[in-house]
């Protein structure tokens, strides 16, 4: 009997599911969907507050906040682009836009951009979102790589503390790491779970690029200036032992417990990691964010590093491109851009936003990031077709093997250049 009741309940519940057919899409209700990848509490609050403010001011062209995730945004967008159901306004990063732009999924913003917005962002930053003659995103947030250092260990060691005006050279950094090492602790912990972007972007400090344009085509080279920083990291891990081998498989977050315990004196991290450092640091722990070292290999080298800015784009299929652009212009007004940057703990791209008093403070070393913004350039990987495949199939395992000492520089070069160029050539036929 009880069994019958159980089965009867199951059978009776089934028709309820059919009622769900009423839960379908309402179709185009005139609302713009804004896919945001903000994930930190303050950042989400800032985004939602700005969307609410926009909706209050523009009730005739409302925007719906849609939460996305950095982890899955590429697959989500690819599927929805193919299906013609993409969000209207898309938060992403420049690195991810290349294939979408080439695929015709993103609107060219060239004609839509208002002059005010166009003029407030430096030309070198706009270059990061231009592919094949079009402009496919508004670069609004950027993030340098910094050295987050244990303040007490730094002071005790007596090494010169660098700032953006006078950063360390790579040689000085290497010497400082030696001084900060000893008794089971390491001067620096390189988190190389994803080694490619940082290896390529830091090669700019020594005048390298890894990716070059030759005869109108992208090619990989890995000569002295390209490999200088990679060789230094390899040396620190495998010869000088000033960097632990164990951290090579870690993400930035994974290195923090060792950093807080004094095991690692410095950890190279993206600027936004300061939020996690501040949140997780034990009481009384003092930390500071230092600029990454600058290259001193002559002309072309210096504090410049590559990066891929966060962007706001418009889907090609969107019917109301002007409204979408107006919303993007609203989000990127100087004070709004500064709010979004503060919420994400990263640096805005706009000239006026960079001068916002809330960001020009010594607290949490905001000034380090602001000071480095002048030296940020387009990551050499931007706009390179086939980069994702090169990164996943060739470069990631090759760099990991090299840093851990399993292969030498010649082997690394062979894989990156010979195998890599074969992949790139396939995309450029």
């Amino acid at each position, binding site marked *: 009997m009880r069994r019958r009741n159980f089965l009867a309940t199951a059978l009776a519940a089934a028709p309820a599911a059919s009622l769900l057919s009423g*839960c379908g899409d309402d179709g185009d209700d005139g609302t713009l969907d804004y896919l945001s990848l903000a994930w930190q509490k303050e950042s989400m609050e800032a985004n939602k507050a700005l969307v609410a403010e926009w909706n209050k001011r523009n009730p005739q062209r409302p925007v719906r906040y849609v939460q996305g995730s950095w982890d899955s945004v590429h697959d989500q967008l690819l599927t929805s682009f193919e299906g013609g159901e993409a969000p209207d306004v898309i938060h992403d990063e420049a690195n991810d836009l290349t294939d979408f732009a080439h695929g015709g999924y993103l609107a060219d913003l060239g004609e839509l951009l208002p002059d005010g917005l166009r003029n407030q962002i430096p030309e070198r930053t706009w270059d990061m979102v231009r592919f094949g003659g079009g402009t496919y995103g508004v670069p609004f947030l950027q993030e340098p790589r910094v050295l987050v250092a244990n303040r007490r260990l730094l002071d005790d060691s007596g090494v010169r503390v660098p700032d953006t005006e006078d950063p360390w050279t790579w040689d000085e950094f290497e010497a400082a790491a030696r001084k900060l090492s000893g008794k089971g602790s390491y001067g620096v912990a390189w988190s190389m779970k994803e080694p490619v972007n940082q290896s390529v972007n830091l090669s700019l400090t020594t005048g390298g690029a890894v990716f070059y344009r030759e005869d109108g085509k992208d090619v990989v080279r890995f000569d002295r200036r390209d490999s200088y920083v990679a060789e230094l990291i390899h040396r620190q891990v495998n010869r000088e032992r000033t960097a632990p081998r164990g951290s090579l498989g870690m993400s930035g977050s994974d290195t923090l417990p060792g950093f807080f315990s004094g095991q690692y004196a410095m950890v190279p991290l*993206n600027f936004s990691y300061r939020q996690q450092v501040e949140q997780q640091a034990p009481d009384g722990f003092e930390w500071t964010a230092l600029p990454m070292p600058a290259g001193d290999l002559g002309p072309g080298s210096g504090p410049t590093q590559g990066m891929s800015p966060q962007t706001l784009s418009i889907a090609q299929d969107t019917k109301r491109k002007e409204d979408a652009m107006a919303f993007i212009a609203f989000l990127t007004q100087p004070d709004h851009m500064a709010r979004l940057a503060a919420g994400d703990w990263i640096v805005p791209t706009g000239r006026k936003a960079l001068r916002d008093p809330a960001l020009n403070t010594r607290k949490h070393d905001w000034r380090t990031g602001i000071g480095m913004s002048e030296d940020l350039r387009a990551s050499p990987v931007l706009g390179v077709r086939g980069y994702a495949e090169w990164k996943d199939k060739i470069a990631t395992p090759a760099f990991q093997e090299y840093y851990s000492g399993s292969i030498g520089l010649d082997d690394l070069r062979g894989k990156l250049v010979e195998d890599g160029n074969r992949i790139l050539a396939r995309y450029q036929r």
Partner: protein
Amino acid sequence: MSSLSRTCGRAGQYLALLCYLAFLAFPLLWLLSIAFKAPQELGTTDPTWLPRHPSLDNFRDAFDQQPLWGSALNSLLVATSAALISVLVAVPAAYALVRYRSAVSKAATGWILVSQMFPFVLVIIPLFLVLKNFQLINSQFGLILVYVVWNLPFALWMLQGYVRAVPASLEEAAAIDGCSRPRILFSVVLPLLTPGLVATLMFSFVTAWNEFFFALVLLKSPEKQTMSVILTHFLGAEGAADLGPLAAAAFLATIPSLLFFALLQRRLVNGMMNGAVKG
């Protein structure tokens, strides 16, 4: 001697079982431990099982930051409906495939097996387009249909085994007593399939509850999203994560599956021990 060796053997069995249980429980217990820890405790190289200063802050933050209640209800609705429909479709289908042996049923069985071999990345874009044509994008009903179709082959395979175990002589006896085919299925076979139904229900429910990618691409509106999608909103770029609230939300997300299993496992065991079917 034999008594001693039996005791040792039994002790060894229990020890192995204990180790296995500890292995299974470890991730869940560690998740629970993290969920109650303050951020400072998460950044230590000397982690402890018990939080030094247990706090509910992570749960509070998780609820503040993301619509956990709404997404849990969505997941419950979608997973329960998908599980029930899967079983309702699979029972008569499995019965027909087992009892009506023909070239068609053999081909159908083979095709069901083949359909399990398609990776979802292969089908997602065509599926998206099909659902779009039926205006089922951003629809929980569309997602339920997808889960039913996705679960059905395995549900069918599971139930076929249970149907095959029911002796045909029981059905023949019922037929002699004047039962029609549907009556035989519902009054004779179905009660004997309870363990199979429960196992299939649990499998379908847990699969739908945990599924992420279909839910991610098919549901646009925040108010319709399921819990597996909402959990990723605690993740940042390049491995960064809001670990405390993520652990709190992930722990909450495991509770319905545990409850579902706790409620149904008695039926699973009871059904198996009923002994109605003797070879």
